[in-house]
């Protein structure tokens, strides 16, 4: 159970990272995130099964295509309404619905839509058999978090990210174009979502409905962790991940979705800015 809780947490963290990146930097809550997750699953599936590309190449194509898609969405849609919270939410939510319901209409439903695992087989840890894929998820989670940290602290774009997150007008005066950087962050957030999809989806089948589930998971992890704080996301995903696993083991698997809601409510009652949210975020939220 310890191991499964860890894996569950890593899954949640992976799902939430992309959403969190976009929100933390550009302030745009990307409600299309779940849709992007599902689309990248189907895109990879199509590339593998219809164009017969090798797995690694189709994964790379998917990630870059989705990243570019996110950037374009920002450039053509979000940029016009940035700062108008209601419009942002409605527009991204609209995009999400267009994508998901279109996929449902086209008929991407069934058990054949599943991605192959990277490496088959399982290992035994603490009396529990674990697929190597699940271990890979943990590895990817650690890798991504370190990568993101290095990226935001040591590259030019990464520093610009943090710049516009902290003080948009000052960074504008220092020659950083907030719109361009926010577009980048949207693209990168989407690419992270695609990556998460490719790593996580081999565990099950790709379904359209999971788009909404992923959005919910990402949202709850981000709310609990404090929006925009990467470290908060990690801690929150551990809390929710373990809580879900414990509930699934001792109560019933049906109740796992309730856990995140309860977590949100408790956190909001105790500390409205989230576990590691800053004062500035507190002001924005409450």
């Amino acid at each position, binding site marked *: 159970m310890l191991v499964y809780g860890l894996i569950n947490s890593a899954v949640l963290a992976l799902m939430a990272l992309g959403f969190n990146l976009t929100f933390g930097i550009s302030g745009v809550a990307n*409600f299309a995130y779940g849709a992007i997750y599902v689309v990248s699953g189907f895109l990879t599936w199509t590339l593998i099964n219809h164009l017969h590309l090798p797995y690694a190449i189709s994964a790379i194509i998917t990630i870059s295509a989705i990243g570019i898609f996110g950037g374009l969405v920002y450039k053509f*849609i979000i940029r016009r309404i940035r700062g108008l919270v209601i*419009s942002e939410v409605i*527009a991204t939510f609209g995009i999400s*619905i267009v994508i998901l*319901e279109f996929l449902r209409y086209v008929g991407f439903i069934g058990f054949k839509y599943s991605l192959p695992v990277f490496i088959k087989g399982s290992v035994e840890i603490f009396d529990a058999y674990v697929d190597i894929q699940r271990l890979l998820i943990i590895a990817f989670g650690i890798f991504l978090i370190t990568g993101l940290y290095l990226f935001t602290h040591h590259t030019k774009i990464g520093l610009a990210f943090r710049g516009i997150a902290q003080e948009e007008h000052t960074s504008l005066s220092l020659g950083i174009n907030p719109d361009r950087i926010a577009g980048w962050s949207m693209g990168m957030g989407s690419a992270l979502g695609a990556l998460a999809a490719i790593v996580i989806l081999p565990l099950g089948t790709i379904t359209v409905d999971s788009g909404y589930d992923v959005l919910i998971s990402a949202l709850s992890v981000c709310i609990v962790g404090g929006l925009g704080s990467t470290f908060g996301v990690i801690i929150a995903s551990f809390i929710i991940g373990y809580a879900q696993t414990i509930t699934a083991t001792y109560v019933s698997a049906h109740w796992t979705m309730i856990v995140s809601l309860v977590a949100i409510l408790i956190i909001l009652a105790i500390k409205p800015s989230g576990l590691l949210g800053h004062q500035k975020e507190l002001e924005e*939220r409450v």
Partner: protein
Amino acid sequence: MKENYRKERIARGIKARSDDIYALTSYKEMWYLLFPRFVPIVGIALIAYFFLPLYWKKVAITTCIFAMLAVSWDFLSNCGLLSLGQALFFGIGSYTAGSLDHYLHLPIYVTIPAATIIGGFISTAILLPVVRLRGIYFAMVTLILPLMLMRLIEATKILGGTEGITGLSPLPNVWSEITLVLAAMWASLFGLRRFIASDYGLIFVSMRDNDRATMASGINIYAFKAQALFIGSSICAFCGAFMTHSYQFTGMPVFAMEFSILPIAAAAIGGIGTLAGPLVGAMILVPLSEILREFGTLRIVFYGLILVICVVALPEGIFHYASRKYNEMERWVRIE
């Protein structure tokens, strides 16, 4: 030549527009004020009662229900509460009416009003912990809640579980349904418009405009937000209760995404913040989607597209545009 001119807009001067004098000097001015209110009320009633076949009468009822959901959505967004989950209120109302009828065998003229009030209370109670949140944070929670409740009902198998509750008592006939729903729709629209325009309603609007300034004026905005939630969700709960009796069924579909997304789409088309605009939007969207019924789930794709296009390209909405054309004279004047 055109760049030497500018468009000038002048409000049509009638005395009713001024603040204290309510002297209407002619029938023409009275008609000017009455026309935009009178024509839709009478027109829709006439069409709904006399000119529609039975199937389209049902569509008209659904249209009015969605119009009320949209008006309530707009009221909530006017109060700074951005809701992505009208389905939550709708579903709670529906389930309340369903269980009152099914388990307590109450008559229909008790269940609908009771479900309106109780549904409003339950929805407000559920959202009370998160009423402190602003903007998208509130939106996130309202998006999550209906999906969660769906899961909860699926998991615990309470209230009929996945099957829902069937065989509820119907409304007497289609005429009474139309009368009830039309009355409720116009009452909620004009009631909310008057409410928003009153001094008390000013507080609600000020919460949207600048909630910290409202707080600084010594107003407990959480109490007022709770009131706004109660008003908004009661209207939705009435819709839910009504639809439950109309279809004689309540079940998990009442939490469906459609009940959340269509009101927002209607508001986006009609013009956010006017209360009447969302109603106009719903009057356009619902019959349209009925015509597009053969496309199945593709309809929801259309709603999504409409949402994105309207929000990005036509942020004003139909109603703002129409009321400007009606209330203001436009002319080109030469730039001096």
